[in-house]
């Protein structure tokens, strides 16, 4: 919630910081929405795809090898990455925490 003038806190980040041997990369827009949304992903397909594309670009630009999320957005971003043949992989956070 980068809009709020409050000390920064992210529960998923706190959990990931407890995992060995991973490095968390910074993004240009830390909490911009990826655009999956639910039925939005097909109901407003043009905007959803564009948002996903931009979100993925932010990660790729910052040297990310794995994108992770705590919801179904991973499907949306993975779909976009696979479409462009990218080597960036996507993992649900449960998959990382379960290792």
């Amino acid at each position, binding site marked *: *919630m*980068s*809009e*709020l*003038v*409050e000390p920064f806190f992210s529960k998923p980040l706190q959990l990931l910081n407890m995992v060995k041997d991973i490095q968390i990369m910074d993004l240009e*827009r830390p909490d*911009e*929405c990826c*655009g*999956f*949304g*639910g*039925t*939005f*992903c*097909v*109901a*407003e*397909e*043009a*905007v*959803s*795809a*564009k*948002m*996903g*594309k*931009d979100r993925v670009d932010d990660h790729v630009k910052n040297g990310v090898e794995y994108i992770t999320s705590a919801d179904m957005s991973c*499907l*949306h971003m*993975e*779909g*976009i990455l*696979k*479409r462009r043949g990218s080597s960036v992989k996507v993992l649900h956070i449960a998959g990382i925490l379960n290792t």
Partner: protein
Amino acid sequence: MSANTANHVELSDIFNEDEQRVNWHDETLWWIRAKRDKAAFKIPEWELLRDTASQIKNNVLSDLHNYLIEFETKAKSNGIIIHWAADAAEHNKIIYSLLLRKGVKQMVKSKSMLTEECHLNEYLASQGIEVIDSDLGERIVQLAEEPPSHIVLPCIHKKKEEIGEIFHKHLGTEAGMSDLQVLTETARIHLRETFLNRKLALTGVNFAIAETGEFVVCTNEGNADMGAHLAEIHIANMGIEKLVPNKKQLGVFLRLLTRSATGQPITTYSSHFKKPRKGQEVHIVLVDNGRSVQLGRADFRNSLKCIRCGACMYTCPVYRRSGGHSYHNAKSGPIGAILAPNLDMKKYADLPFACILCGSCTHVCPVKIDIHDQLYKWRQVIVKEGYADATKTVGMRLMNLVLSSPKMYRLAGKIGRWFIQYIPSAVNTKYNLWFKHREMPAPPKQPFRDWYKKRHCLI
């Protein structure tokens, strides 16, 4: 496409055809969000300010009747003439009658979203009155014959080269001129002439103070002041919710408004109008136009706290990638999506769905309107009233069937995975909207449920 069939999905589809332009639009608006963040983070008590403003506005809405009467009494005792308009049509008629009475055929107007809401310009044009918008952004879209796309930055959707073309066509600048200094100078000269000649000026109202009967107009250009001080008649129009109880509380709002709108500490001009100068008439038109109906909606009355900063728009990732015009309403973006359905639920049924409920709008709102909660609630109302998209209604009913039965859900999963694995051409088609820009998800070796059961020795 006629205005009646305009909807956000189709309009934003068109907007997204030019990806470079979408990138430019998105980055331009994000830059303002970044400026706003810088300004807000300079004030350690920012969240307290937001909370205070929110509570003041809650108080105003809870006693609107009495505050309005107080305001009217005080303003009248200061020599201001008060008019009440129940709806847009009455608002337009009142203003026209004032013009008629004085035989005025030309009017200068500073920014007023209320006039957009009431379609005043079109009405007056049909009565033979010429209206010049003095806010530079508004003037540009007026010359371009377009509606504004953002409530604070009306022509943010136009690049300076395009503005240069508009000025070349209408104001005689050189073709291809896009130098900002030259364009601004041209606009100044053009508008100066307007200010000097117009007998009647219309301004909006940012805040009206019940305690003193005065009203405050905030501009960066001073165009409201130019117009008002040179005119014989100054008309100020305002929605009835624009009140603040007393002068001391105004400071809270002035600290929040411009930081939220553009990231500036304050607008160049924050002008207080209290008494007409000698020989001048000042009129205030107080407009309802659906506000009292909205006030009666418990879930949505908070939307009336809005101080029209526009922050919800530039922070909204959907707005940035679809543009103000795809909301086919003067009040676009998140706040437009919760105000417009109150006025015409059928016409604006698409707006609350043009949203991923990320909540950024709620977090930037200086008066803490629960915008994304209201967007969600409007969806329930719209569907119940039967204005939801037909395809979506059928789709949702089907989803409900599948998701409410564990057996159906497992079966649907099995069928889906089978198709993706063995007959991918059935899903990888242009009829599958998902497939337009994304690959389908790979079918897992086994569903999570089975993996979990095995793992925990439940099978």
